[in-house]
């Protein structure tokens, strides 16, 4: 099977790169070995949230203080600014409506009720312009009975620390009770499937109106709108007060939705999406990959002019570690990981863990290095790239989006 470009990995970066290429008419195939980290999404994309332990106000300005190995440093300030705009409009074209500004962070509210800097937040989710206050004086945070994947007491505590009066009325519905009959499966995403039924949404709206009281806004965990925004639109229309969602613990309802939206858009543009398959062999001739084979298609090799590695970090198996080493499993590309496993991590889980910054090394065009030299028709994007810790910097989704677009641009510029 022949394509112009084959992308390995179907997460945020792979899909974004695929869309950017497919909409110029390129024949693109994405090989996705299972689902991706968008399922842990918090409702906001982040460009750069934190440098040296302090919140970043203007991400575009703060980029200059990043390490040389950081993917943004390879693009430069101007390209970052330009691609950030492009990313926002691409998301919009895929039906993912967001608000935010790359020159000025706003704040998202986490599932623990903490504020963190954000770049683009999905419309409908609660945000605030300041780290220490909310735009409402008094809110009702809706408690869905026995929904244990939302630590609502922590959120109430967090919101109160933002100088807001918080009430926590409980909503009981038959459809929630039915979901709770499962000891394990009343997750955010399963509740969201319950609320794809408009009758259940109407019941929810009615119940909220009955308990909301005299507040400036109603907030509730984001358990509505898993396949599209219809259910949340209906809910908002029926709830009398202004209403906003707060992200939950995974699996993320909004993550599932935008994952599907990006995939639909990619397929609508003619892209081929091979879900549940993995590229397990790449044939290298000199500095070029000539073809790849997948686990499922076996004797049908996939051939393309360019290959994009968007396989993610350890948890997505784009990087593999064992007792002896860290390596990139497809091409054994150069990584920035030291040999001794004792050096990969440190005590204190939420510190600056070295392994979080591991990944493949590339040249300035994001062509990965093998034995110190770049491969000529291979690119690496997203979390498989080394040189940045997305948890301490707050730049994970931004790096995924922007490197995907930068590489798409590099590929298109070649002609």
């Amino acid at each position, binding site marked *: 099977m022949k394509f112009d470009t084959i992308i390995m990995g179907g997460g945020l970066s792979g899909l974004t790169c695929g869309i950017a290429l497919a909409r110029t008419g390129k024949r693109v195939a994405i090989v996705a070995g*299972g689902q991706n980290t968008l399922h842990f999404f918090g409702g906001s994309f982040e460009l750069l949230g934190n440098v040296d332990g302090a919140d970043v106000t203007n991400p575009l300005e703060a980029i200059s203080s990043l390490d040389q190995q950081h993917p943004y440093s390879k693009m430069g300030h101007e390209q970052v600014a330009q691609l950030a705009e492009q990313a926002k409009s691409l998301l919009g074209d895929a039906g993912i409506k967001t608000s935010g500004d790359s020159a000025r962070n706003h704040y998202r509210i986490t599932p623990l009720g903490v504020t963190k800097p954000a770049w683009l937040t999905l419309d409908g989710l609660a945000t605030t312009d300041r780290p220490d206050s909310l735009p409402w004086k008094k809110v009702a945070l809706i408690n869905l009975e026995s929904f244990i994947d939302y630590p609502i007491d922590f959120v109430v505590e967090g919101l109160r620390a933002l100088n807001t009066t918080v009430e926590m009325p409980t909503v009981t519905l038959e459809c929630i009770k039915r979901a709770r009959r*499962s000891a394990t499966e009343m997750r955010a995403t399963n509740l969201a499937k319950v609320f794809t039924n408009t009758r259940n949404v109407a019941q929810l709206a009615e119940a909220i109106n009955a308990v909301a009281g005299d507040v400036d806004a109603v907030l509730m965990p984001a358990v509505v709108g898993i396949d599209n925004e219809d259910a949340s639109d209906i809910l908002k229309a029926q709830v009398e007060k202004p209403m906003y969602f707060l992200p939950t613990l995974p699996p993320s309802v909004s993550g599932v939705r935008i994952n599907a939206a990006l995939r639909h858009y990619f397929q609508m543009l003619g892209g081929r999406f091979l879900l549940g398959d993995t590229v397990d062999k790449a044939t290298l001739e000199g500095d070029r990959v000539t073809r790849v084979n997948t686990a499922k298609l076996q004797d049908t090799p996939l051939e393309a002019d360019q290959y994009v590695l968007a396989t993610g970090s350890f948890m997505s198996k784009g990087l593999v570690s064992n007792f002896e080493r860290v390596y990139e499993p497809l091409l054994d590309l150069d990584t920035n990981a030291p040999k001794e496993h004792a050096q990969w991590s440190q005590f204190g889980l939420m510190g600056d863990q070295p392994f979080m910054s591991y990944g493949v090394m590339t040249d300035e065009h994001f062509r990965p290095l093998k034995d110190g030299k770049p491969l000529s028709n291979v690119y690496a994007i997203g979390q498989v790239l080394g040189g940045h810790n997305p948890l301490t910097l707050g730049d994970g989704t931004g790096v995924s989006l922007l490197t995907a677009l930068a590489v798409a641009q590099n590929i298109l510029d070649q002609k």
Partner: protein
Amino acid sequence: MATTQLTSISDHNFEQCLKCSICTVYCPVAAVNPAYPGPKQAGPDGERYRLKDPKFFDEALKLCLNCKRCEVACPSDVRIGDLIQQARMKHTTHRPKLRDMMLANTDLVGSMATIVAPITNFSLGLKPVKVVMDAVMAIDKHRTFPAYSAQKFEAWYRKNAQAQQDKFAHHVSYFHGCYVNYNFPQLGKDLVTVMNAVGYGVHLLDKEKCCGVALIANGMYQQARKQGEVNMASMRKSINQMRRPIITTSSTCTFTMRDEYPELLGVNNDNVREHLSLATRFLFQLIDEGEVKLAFRPDFKMRVAYHTACHMQRMGWAIYSTELLRMIPGLELVELDQNCCGISGTYGFKKENYETSQAIGSILFADIEAAKPDYVSTDCETCKWQIEMSTGVKVLNPISILAQAIDVEATQKLNGVR
């Protein structure tokens, strides 16, 4: 010490599970039936406890459709569905009911039914019979049983096709499956048309038994194993002695014989697996390699919505069928979203599962209605029953669409067939 902690090996990779819970998002059963513990709990979580003590086996695991959508979604390559089926195989103490045995023995019941097809079809459609089946057999009364054909495919083949097959330059064996044989011989005829047009003679296997997918689903593993051995023996003969690879027109039969045989049943399919293919894949590869060409009728027009059957998704082969369909100039293709139709073989026929089955399918049915296709296309026969019953839209196998779309004479000419 050379191998210390370089890889992690566990039964169906259950230990690779990161508890990320992504599989639960894509389980069609957990979404509609709170009695089912969900793939994570039923699979890798439960497995650790079952290793400690078999009493942790939960009979609710029988609610699993075995659709394997959990496996497709899993980013860690945990074979969740296999774990669940294996646990059922190992621990279940319930004997299959008569109803389940009848549903599972598709070829036995099929051969009886074909003999008396007009009567069977008449009585299967009759209200009182349906009520009795509902009450006595616990087969849901809403179900329309697939009609039995008066003439089995094998009989048609022997009478009308067999004699011409030896004249072709290339040859394949065709595993037609129970559905083509008893219910819908037309698909088999279409396959013969298409393959003959590109210069391939189509032959039956020496001995063909039902692949056993329904036996596995209904807990009759011994019988499934036996039938698997018969099929493998016939296929080995076809491959080794006649040099004929085997093709099928059913994604489920193919998946069962390629993957469930070794993984679940312990039936060895070495040296067969790589020669056993779905017809769409076989054709696509021939075309891709420039071995054969297709010529299409200029007047052919059709809007088709392609549904990826669960086991097709698990095999990762939908692309072969869709790429083949895309080759047809007059065909407008809509790829439906990845959702289960809810039938899952015999699962949806059971009274206790009917509601779950239809609830699962509802998302797909709505998508089909929205797509407004002339036909739905899928590679699975049980999806066909479910979709036709639930949406009223006719369903065609991609091979049948090809048979309609190609200009047979022109194709023969392109491929040097007299």
